[in-house]
């Protein structure tokens, strides 16, 4: 693994940890959901660097795409109940 790739993956790992921290500690729920999606997005780039494009596609489509929106969907529903 070349130096550029190595430093890139270190950066990605740091970004994953940082977004996971935001997802856990963030005050707003929607920011937490977005941060959890960002963890998946960074993870999918990481998979790409680790030469696993198939896994990267799955992670990007399901982990950061569908799951994030699913959370928002449910969040909207739960808020709707609270307002009623």
């Amino acid at each position: 693994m070349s130096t550029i790739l190595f430093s890139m993956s270190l950066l990605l790992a740091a970004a994953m940890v940082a977004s996971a921290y935001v997802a856990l500690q963030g005050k707003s729920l929607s920011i937490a959901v977005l941060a959890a999606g960002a963890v998946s997005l960074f993870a999918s780039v990481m998979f790409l660097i680790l030469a696993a494009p198939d896994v990267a596609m799955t992670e990007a489509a399901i982990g950061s795409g569908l799951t994030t929106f699913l959370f928002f969907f449910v969040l909207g529903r739960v808020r709707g109940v609270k307002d009623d």
Partner: protein
Amino acid sequence: MIKKFIALWLLAGFGSMFVGLLLGYSPDTALNHTARYYADNTVADTGAANIVTAIIVTYRGLDTLGEVTVLFLTATIVALILSQARQPGGVGSRKAVAAGELLQTGSRLLVPLILLFGAYVFVNGHLTPGGGFQGGAIVASATLLMLLTDPFRRFSHRLISVLESISGVLFVVIGVLGLVLAGGFLDNRILPLGAFGTLFSAGAIPVIYTLIGLKVGAEFSSMMASLSETEGQ
């Protein structure tokens, strides 16, 4: 206090485990036995350019059938649980929040493109990275975009379930055909292998992956549609 202590202790345990693994890591210089077999024989056996696809659909085809079954069960259970909360009329009971102009126009432009890209991903599963599961998820994200634009849009559950069942049944039928005509269950050599690297090659792999893509896309879409149709009570 005690809880925090246990959490810290667990974290330290995991940390030491991972540090041990990291320090003991040395990259493999050669492929192991199984990986070498796949690397050497995939092209001759299946004619697929993407080894991952060849493993998923042919060598480990039975596992894929299991995965598809698990996903099917999940979609069925979601539909079963949510069907009780489903609203009969559906439209107009809640105050509709109109989607913005940007989202509406953007989704009109993007939905066909996303559908096309999903179809491309699962049809080309044997040539390029990706395949049925990824393509199905991309197709389902087009459904999701439509639902985001118009939360009261209704999809035909009959159409989705017919599509889903037919592709599931055809998947198993192709598997059994492999048992009859070729070497075993889900053997892809029931169709000619064709020229390596072209779209119509690798025997039944494109057909199987198209079916899986349709099935996964239909299942995810039905989950999204059921979630969207439930009224928050």
